[in-house]
């Protein structure tokens, strides 16, 4: 078929703005809104379409760490430090504190924009998880009330509408491909970005005073399936780490990129549709589980004591102030551990039989209804794929039980070499302004190291946006080297002019296999170096022979080139850490020492002209969270106090 869109290959359009935001998910939208509200001109660039783009584009159900909501019994300091401690300090204190401190403010913003954050339809009156005074609804810890249940499907359309209202310049279907930088007095400065329209091939040059990276995290590094590539990872098929790749090419610093975990989810290739199987975690907490015989699986407290009352699943143990549950909390320390079903090994020893099922019929009515119909329905990829589809197939939670697969809640079993960036993985290193090591370049959301959760994306997005705006207000435009544009143009279009070359899928498959073989579960220098050598041969011999027939395939081809860049970054990060580290799920066979005290540090990595450089940074470099935050955000604190 003839290509249905205009052909604008070779056309270059320049857009001048104060702030350019790369990535139109939750964090990018909030960054754009915050900067625009400071009176600056703002452009936002999104590869898909902002209305539903990003990891939470079609919804999300939990808003974590809303410590300042009126019902909360915990402080931002308590929860932020708890996360840092839970992750053995290989954590991002700044990120968590901004989330705990400002997250609820963003939720109120969303409500003003038209998003739904309360049970205004009074569907859940009388439920234990609902506060009748505010109509807010809570999940997990009903005593401390700091995780909210929200109607996330309403949020992205509301953000899009707000950006249009404010006059943010929106560039949908544009893939950001490179950062623009310039060197002034020996120092690198950001000066915008380059993008390509994925339908027309038009090249867009964004000349900006500051740039915000909001492009999520890498994927398809170890996992790939050429038949159903859209299903091979958990996060959106579009999110593959282009922001990391362009950052690395421009000299941006990263940390914790050596962290990867044995894969837990695919969007469905190996697993089942996310949130679409019987389980009792996250969206499904605290569903009643039964075994093949229909015998109920007991919930226990942190001491292993069986909980007899249904509602005990939602309260801290005796003597415990609060517990942690959520996106990055897998197997928490005793101090933070909440109620949980008996572990699999004990269940089998006690004669429980597979398969297990979620049996919502055994739950109080409003608890059942809030899972099936509210949470399943509002979480990402559940409104149509699960709630509507399963209802159409005849699923009724009062008469049916939904099967679990594997032995846990992941709904699949992966091998150790099949890895994923999950559970607060690595990302961009930053300071208290969410600024990278390059002046004028900021980052937010999932691009930051040790990040997770939709509320955090919104909070850090807004924060990065206002810091980027403050910077842009005080500087002049800086020129950039025009050779950057010429080189990028050649790089971008090259695969269009190669006849009968290699397809992007073949390269993605080869990278994934290389990473499984050389950077899998157990690592050592010799193996990692062989892997790096193999990736470099791909770069030298295969990349110049990639070919494609239209801008869509060109977009996919550049995604794989970015995956190749990220894979090299990961291997370099692995080579830099010379010991095993349990907190980073990082295992070495050539260095016997495990978790030595001298290795409890960030190894921050970047490259300059092809040379990889590292520096050590203290894990708690963020300092005293409250004090550091308050000294840098006086104006914001004043604004919030005035509004209240």
């Amino acid at each position, binding site marked *: *078929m*003839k*290509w*249905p869109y205009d*052909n604008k*290959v*070779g056309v270059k359009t320049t857009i001048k703005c104060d702030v350019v935001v790369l990535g139109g998910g939750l964090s990018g939208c909030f960054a754009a809104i915050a900067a625009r509200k400071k009176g600056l001109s703002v452009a936002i660039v999104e590869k*898909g*379409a902002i*209305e*539903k*783009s990003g990891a939470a*584009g*079609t919804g999300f159900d939990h808003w974590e760490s809303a410590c300042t909501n009126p019902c909360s019994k915990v402080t931002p300091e308590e929860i932020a430090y708890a996360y840092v401690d839970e992750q053995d300090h290989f954590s991002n204190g700044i990120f968590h504190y901004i989330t705990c401190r400002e997250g609820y403010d963003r939720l109120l913003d969303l409500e003003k924009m038209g998003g739904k954050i309360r049970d205004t339809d009074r569907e859940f009156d009388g439920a234990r998880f609902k506060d009748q005074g505010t109509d807010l609804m809570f999940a997990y810890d009903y005593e401390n009330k700091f995780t909210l249940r929200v109607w996330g*499907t309403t949020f992205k359309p509301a953000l899009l509408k707000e950006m249009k209202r404010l006059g943010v310049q929106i560039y*949908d*279907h544009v893939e950001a491909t490179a950062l623009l930088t310039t060197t002034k007095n020996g120092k690198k400065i950001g000066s915008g970005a380059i993008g390509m329209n*994925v*339908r027309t091939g038009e090249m867009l040059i964004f000349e900006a005073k500051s740039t915000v990276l909001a492009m999520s995290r890498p994927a398809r590094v170890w996992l790939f399936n050429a*038949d*159903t*590539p*859209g*299903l091979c990872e958990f996060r*959106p*098929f*579009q999110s593959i780490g282009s922001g990391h790749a362009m950052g690395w090419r421009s000299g941006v610093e990263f940390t914790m990129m050596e962290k990867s975990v044995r894969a837990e989810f695919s*969007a*469905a290739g190996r697993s*089942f*549709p996310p949130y*679409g199987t*019987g389980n009792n975690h996250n969206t499904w907490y605290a569903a009643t589980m039964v075994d093949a015989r*229909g015998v109920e699986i007991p919930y226990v407290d942190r001491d292993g004591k069986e909980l007899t009352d249904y509602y005990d699943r939602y309260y801290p143990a005796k003597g415990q102030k609060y517990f942690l549950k959520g996106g990055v909390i897998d197997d928490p320390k005793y101090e933070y551990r909440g109620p949980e079903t008996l572990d699999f090994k004990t269940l089998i020893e006690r004669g429980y039989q597979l398969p297990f*099922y979620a*049996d919502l*019929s055994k739950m109080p009515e409003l608890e059942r209804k809030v899972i099936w119909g509210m949470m399943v329905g509002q979480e*990402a*990829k559940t*409104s*149509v*794929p699960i709630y509507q*589809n*399963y209802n159409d197939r005849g*699923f009724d939670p009062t*008469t*049916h*039980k*939904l*099967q679990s*697969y594997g032995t846990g809640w992941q709904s699949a079993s992966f091998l150790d070499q099949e890895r994923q960036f999950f559970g607060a993985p690595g990302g961009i290193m930053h300071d208290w302004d969410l600024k990278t090591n390059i002046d004028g370049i900021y980052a937010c959301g999932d691009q930051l190291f040790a990040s997770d959760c939709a509320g955090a994306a919104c909070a850090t997005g807004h924060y990065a946006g206002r810091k980027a705006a403050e910077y842009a207000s005080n500087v002049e435009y800086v020129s950039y080297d025009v050779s950057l544009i010429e080189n990028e143009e050649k790089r971008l*279009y090259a695969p*269009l*002019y190669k006849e009968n070359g290699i397809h992007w899928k073949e390269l993605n498959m080869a990278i994934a296999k290389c990473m499984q073989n050389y950077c899998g579960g157990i690592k050592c220098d010799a193996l990692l170096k062989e892997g790096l050598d193999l990736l470099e041969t791909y770069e030298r011999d295969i990349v110049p022979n990639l070919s494609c*027939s*239209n*801008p*869509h395939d060109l*977009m*996919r081809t550049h995604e794989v080139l970015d995956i190749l860049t990220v894979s090299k970054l990961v291997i370099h990060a692995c080579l830099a850490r010379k010991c095993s580290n349990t907190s980073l799920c990082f295992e070495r066979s050539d260095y016997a020492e495990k978790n030595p005290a001298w290795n409890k540090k960030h190894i921050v990595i970047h490259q300059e002209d092809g040379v990889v450089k590292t520096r050590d940074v203290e894990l708690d470099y963020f300092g005293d969270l409250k004090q550091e935050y308050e000294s840098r955000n006086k104006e914001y604190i004043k604004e919030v106090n005035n509004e209240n």
Partner: protein
Amino acid sequence: MKTKEFTVNQIPSSTMPIHYNEELCVGCNRCVDVCQCDILFPNEEKGKTPLVMYPGECYYCGACVMVCPNKGAITLQHPLMNQAKFVEIK
């Protein structure tokens, strides 16, 4: 830079995630514009059902169904292997 004529052909996949009901679809292309993976393309004939050119690249988010103005015009169908099992409670 020399001009190249672009083409697009359906890339076969073992799955077909999106099904259109031609009688209900008005060919407004809302789904084409909202699709995050850009797998849907406008029909050459105006007002006709869009074409699923890259079915394997579908991420099964359901955005196309969510924005469709005519209920039932688009159906999202999981691959057969992903039809999770549920049974009656005895």
